């Protein structure tokens, strides 16, 4: 089985210099691999470090120790030590990410927010917009909203824009941070179907899902994050 992303012995802590240098250990000894065509789910209670792990995999959080090896463009890249430029290239072509909340940009229409990952890879703007429209239609976002900036959208509408943006590319690795948290049952089902589609296409997924129905529907393996609690790690 192809494993496009391998995490070994990763640890993460925050040092709060404004609080007298308190060191807050988040996770230690994080080790797992993602398999192409499967969805792994990070399990464990709130505050155990699930989102922190996703953010390290996306290069959004720095890594204290360990390696995050991703297969990018036929080479292996260690995200724990990669240069900003290398991380940008990995994000553009290899690792996609659906964050919990959409970060809106003033004046940019929902359709363009969704199309951006494609245009950033040099694809034709009109074709990218057509593809974006398909994604938004599939997620049942009313067409009258497509030309509006998402800043004023409801939580569920913003989340669907975010999902469309994350799923529009054919990145071989996709990270999902509670993509269904603010969706109704019908749209949750659409997302479940989209995740199944990604699996069939051979994408390796890693997600956080608090919703048990969704988790049961999509998870191939559960990674228990409590095993990576500081002080508990075997090594």
């Amino acid at each position: 089985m192809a494993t496009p992303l391998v995490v070994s012995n990763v640890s993460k802590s925050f040092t709060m210099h404004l609080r007298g240098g308190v060191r807050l250990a988040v996770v230690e000894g994080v080790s797992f691999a993602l398999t192409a065509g499967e969805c792994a789910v990070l399990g464990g209670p709130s505050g155990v470090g699930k989102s922190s792990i996703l953010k390290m995999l996306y290069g959004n959080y720095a890594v204290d120790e360990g390696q995050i090896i991703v297969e990018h463009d036929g080479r292996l890249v260690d995200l724990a030590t990669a240069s900003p430029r290398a991380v940008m290239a990995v994000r553009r072509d290899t690792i996609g990410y659906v964050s919990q909340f959409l970060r809106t940009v003033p004046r940019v229409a929902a359709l363009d927010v969704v199309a951006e990952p494609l245009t950033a890879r040099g694809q034709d703007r009109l074709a990218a917009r057509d593809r974006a429209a398909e994604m938004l239609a599939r997620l049942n976002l009313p067409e009258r909203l497509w030309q509006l900036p998402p800043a004023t959208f409801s939580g569920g509408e913003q989340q669907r824009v975010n999902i469309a943006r994350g799923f529009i590319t054919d990145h071989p690795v996709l990270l999902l941070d509670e993509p269904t948290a603010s969706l109704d049952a019908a749209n949750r089902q659409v997302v479940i179907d989209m995740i199944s589609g990604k699996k069939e296409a051979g994408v390796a997924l890693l997600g956080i899902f608090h919703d048990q129905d969704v988790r049961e529907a999509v998870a191939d393996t559960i990674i228990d994050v409590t095993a990576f609690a500081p002080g508990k790690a075997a090594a």
Partner: protein
Amino acid sequence: MSDDPLLRVSSVSKSYGQRVGCADVSFDLWPGEVLAVVGESGSGKTTLLNCLSTRLMPSAGSVDYRMRDGSWRDLYRMSEAERRLLMRTDWGFVHQNPADGLRMTVSAGANVGERLMAIGDRHYGNIRAAATDWLGRVEIAEDRVDDEPRAFSGGMRQRLQIARNLVTGPRLVFMDEPTGGLDVSVQARLLDLLRGLVADLGLAAIVVTHDLAVARLLSQRMMVMKDGRVIETGLTDRVLDDPRAPYTQLLVSSILQV
């Protein structure tokens, strides 16, 4: 993305007598990349920008620039004439105060056309057409082409300054607090415009700002300065979401939530 950087900065320092302007700054910048330089007033951001754009001579260090023909040139060893040509054609400089970058007593169209004439364009019709096109791209209505920037609002002046800088198709643009002093609504419009232009034209840019929200919106990479030195550097979202240096943590935690 090209594999060769556009600009190589090595150990640039500038001191004013005993006082340090900026010290030992090194980085590479690639085509299409926007680097934000942040820090509070007096941290050396503008001194650094002025050194990099050769408006100021550094006390030490070197800056190499890859010319359009692929050759590398040390900026501080170029002749004054060569540097001027570079600044007029390949570079842009957007000042915080548009009056510093515009000629306030000639028309908007002439402000844009002047840069074209400086690189040898002589056909009036072409120059005027290019100027009108660029004013449209920065959302200045065609019927304002013959007005002087004195009659423009602050936001319009700033957009005009951007058009003047971009009309020659530069590869590198320096910006010093491009949204400073503008209303937030005007700022949002300008930021959106800048974002679009930088992405469409594949520009490299170095943006000095004290506004972390501006840095987040415009840049991919960020450099935090304090007392003339670079104290933290990395991907913009990494620096803002997981700041490591004590001073960066202070800056990020000082942002007001709306």
